[in-house]
């Protein structure tokens, strides 16, 4: 038997050039469906003017990031049961720290630009063992062949929205971007070193660890930022005793 709940969903609404307001819609829901199903149904059956973004409905595209009861979530993998009780009110609002296009949709262009800037690889060889230890790892067809895998970061922007430092400092590269730099690998790129070893790079992080708390996709940006710091310090110690040749820096 499918359970039936009745809840109130409070949508953040804003059209261009207008002031934002909240809109309440009473909805019959199945507590096991995900928040994106409610949002889509609200558009299909209740109010055709609602604007929202989504694509994959299974946490692989990163389009459906929003704030559910103020907290950054991927709406497509957030069961209704986990965020509201029967008879209660659920609030959905767009991400913070990005300009709102309309209603629940924000412009994440800057995040995408910066991910390109640091050279994050959307498909990478499967260095981090996607098949976890409770299962047995697959064997490659050719002995020297690597499996390729769509990378963990789905560029959903949740971490950028939750980061209090990025809120106040838009120039701060931000957790997803620094994690992207970590994935891209500093070793290969001295310019990347310069970019992140700066006041808008790893040193701007103030250890709120909100990024790691909200990341839905195993990236753990907080840990990666600290790893980058370690690498930067390690590199400084190394170059203290063994200065880089000018030619290398210019590359």
């Amino acid at each position, binding site marked *: 038997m499918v359970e039936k709940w009745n809840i109130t969903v409070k949508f953040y609404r804003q*059209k261009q050039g207008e002031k934002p307001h909240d809109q309440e819609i009473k909805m019959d829901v199945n507590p096991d469906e*995900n928040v994106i199903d409610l949002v889509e149904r609200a558009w299909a059956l209740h109010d055709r003017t609602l604007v929202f973004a989504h694509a994959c409905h299974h946490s692989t595209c990163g389009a459906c990031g929003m704030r559910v009861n103020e907290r950054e979530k991927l709406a497509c993998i957030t069961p209704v049961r986990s965020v509201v009780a029967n008879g209660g009110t659920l609030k959905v609002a767009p991400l913070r720290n990005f300009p709102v296009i309309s209603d629940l949709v924000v412009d994440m262009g800057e995040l995408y630009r910066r991910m390109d800037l640091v050279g994050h690889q959307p498909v990478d060889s499967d260095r981090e063992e996607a098949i976890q230890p409770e299962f047995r790892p697959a064997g490659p067809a050719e002995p020297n062949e690597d499996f390729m895998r769509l990378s963990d970061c789905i560029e959903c922007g949740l971490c950028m929205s939750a980061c209090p430092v990025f809120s106040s400092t838009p120039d701060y590269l931000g957790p997803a971007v620094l994690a992207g730099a970590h994935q891209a690998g500093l070793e290969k790129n001295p310019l990347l070193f310069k970019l992140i070893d700066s006041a808008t790079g790893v040193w701007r992080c103030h250890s709120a660890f909100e990024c790691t708390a909200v990341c839905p996709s195993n990236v753990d940006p907080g840990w990666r930022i600290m790893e980058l710091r370690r690498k930067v310090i390690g590199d400084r110690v190394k170059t203290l005793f063994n200065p880089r040749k000018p030619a290398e820096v210019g590359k």
Partner: protein
Amino acid sequence: MTKPHAIIIGAGFTGVATAHDLAMRGFDVTVVERGPIANGTSGRTHGLLHSGGRYAVKDQESAIECIDENLILRKIVPSVIEPNGGLFVALSESDLDYAEEFIAGCEACHIPIEQLTPQRALKLEPNLNPKLLVAFTIPDGTFDPLRLAMSFAATAKKNGANFHLYHEVKSLLMDGKATVTGARLLDRTSNKEIDLHGDIVINATGAWAGEITAMAGADVPIKPTPGIMVAFERRTAQRAINRLCAPADGDIVLPQRRMMVVGTTSFAADNLDYIPIVEDQIKLMVERAADLLPGLRSVKLRGIYMASRPLIGGGTGRSIARTFKCFDHKETHNLDGFVTITGGKATTLRAMAEKTADTVCAKLGINAACQTKETPLISYRQFYSLN
């Protein structure tokens, strides 16, 4: 001469690929989409870069399209594809019976396969059902649906195409009763209406194609056929795992990021804008996935979703061919300036676009060859960074 202006309705796979093709052929292109990129079926596909094996027995036209396009996409857009191949796995005697037809079909469609013993198959994918009887390798892959669409959109944008996202087509502009000259749009971000005029209007709204043609008093034989998809929160294989049998419910489980995704079913829907999830189908999917990869039985579910195939013409569900069709409404309804492209698969998006662009060029008397087979796409991220 000024460039011809093409209006494309829908930014699913078909729409963005057509935008890319026409932009390369020198058209002025405007794409109109009521949601974000990949708002409809395209965003919610399984993500299987088909090798064609699934159709090699019953629908060889589709199978050949798939293998050809599979190889092209691997080359032009590698940054959204996990190219790790796939397996067809036989678990029962009846699966074994199907093997003969399967081998013959793949050969006829020049799909390269290799037969594996159970031991060898288990070495490649140790989490497979140990009771498997035989397996075949096949050049499947996995793609990221949104990023595949965005790569085409970004490249189209670089070549001058305009994208009006969150703009819904409300009606078609007509010159009398015989020519479509544009579309009336509602900008959903501001609730304002805009009229857009073009030399040709291309309806690429997939399962919704009938709603658009109805605006011009025409129809298309589209049969929207939804299916369910279930994502598990663990990855237990590196290759796409197909059941060696005639196309059936839940016959494909494939890896994506750190998940496995199983699909799908096939039934009829009333309201395409919202397709409710059917509980019984979830159970069926889990069972079918666990037949192939038993470990999945105890893995938590991560996402459940429905999407609607835009299948063409007669027959029902699985018996309908999976190929695509471009309708010139001058021929079907004596309506000028209007074509519909629909059917097909994600894997064949580029070929669908080529066919549409050929039709459009012929209609407008333009002589321009398709260049999309050899042109690498730019990074999907540039869809946002280009202005």
